[in-house]
């Protein structure tokens, strides 16, 4: 179980920005997320970074209900 935070194109593809998903590791949570949100989300996930509790993380990391997994697609820059 972990809290999922989806941003920008990942939020748009999933149709949701925050979710709670079962799973003991980042990999398990994201596999369930793909099942839930479909292939459009999977395409974005493939090119995204994963941050765990605010820092870049590894997909084999184990997670609990208080951990936040953020999906961060490529950015386009703040301005000009």
């Amino acid at each position: 179980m972990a809290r999922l935070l989806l941003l920008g194109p990942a939020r748009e593809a999933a149709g949701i920005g925050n979710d709670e998903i079962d799973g003991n590791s980042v990999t398990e949570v994201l596999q369930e997320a793909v099942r839930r949100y479909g292939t459009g989300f999977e395409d974005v996930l493939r090119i995204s970074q994963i941050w765990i509790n605010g820092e870049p993380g590894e997909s084999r990391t184990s997670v609990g209900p208080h951990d936040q997994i953020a999906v961060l697609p490529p950015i386009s820059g703040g301005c000009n």
Partner: protein
Amino acid sequence: MESAPTLDWVSIASTPLSSAELTTWATRANCGAVVTFCGMVRDNSHDLEEIEALEYETDVELAERRIVDIIAEARIRWTNLGAIAIHHRMGRVELSESAVVIVVSAPHRGPAFEAAAFCIDAVKSCVPMWKRELWQGGSAWSEEGRAIMKVQEMPSLEPDPETSSARTQ
């Protein structure tokens, strides 16, 4: 951060930015230079001609943490800076409004220019922030996507040896 802090001022909010307020805030008796950068919504991008607004999406906590990292890194690379402010809008920002304002004060102008340029480069490269371009009747994510970098991986802005002696006076 609600009231103006002393040395570093980070803000991500949906209210309009005032570069004048930040410039005044950054003034220090021992600083002879204040450099202010306004990143504004302009009417065109790589492939669009008539942009009328941008819309920024972020997570405030993640983004502010990265901006704090950027300021810390600037203070490591330039050891004698005065005040640093980095304020970023989120949500819809109209044409010719500032989406981001960066202010750096320093005793001398060389470091003030260099640190301000570093900060906006780092904001564009290291902060989780997504930009939609809005035009009459449509919108789309900005196309120039790249992976978020760590602040420490930002390339250094080497001062040009030919001009750095003049610029560090």
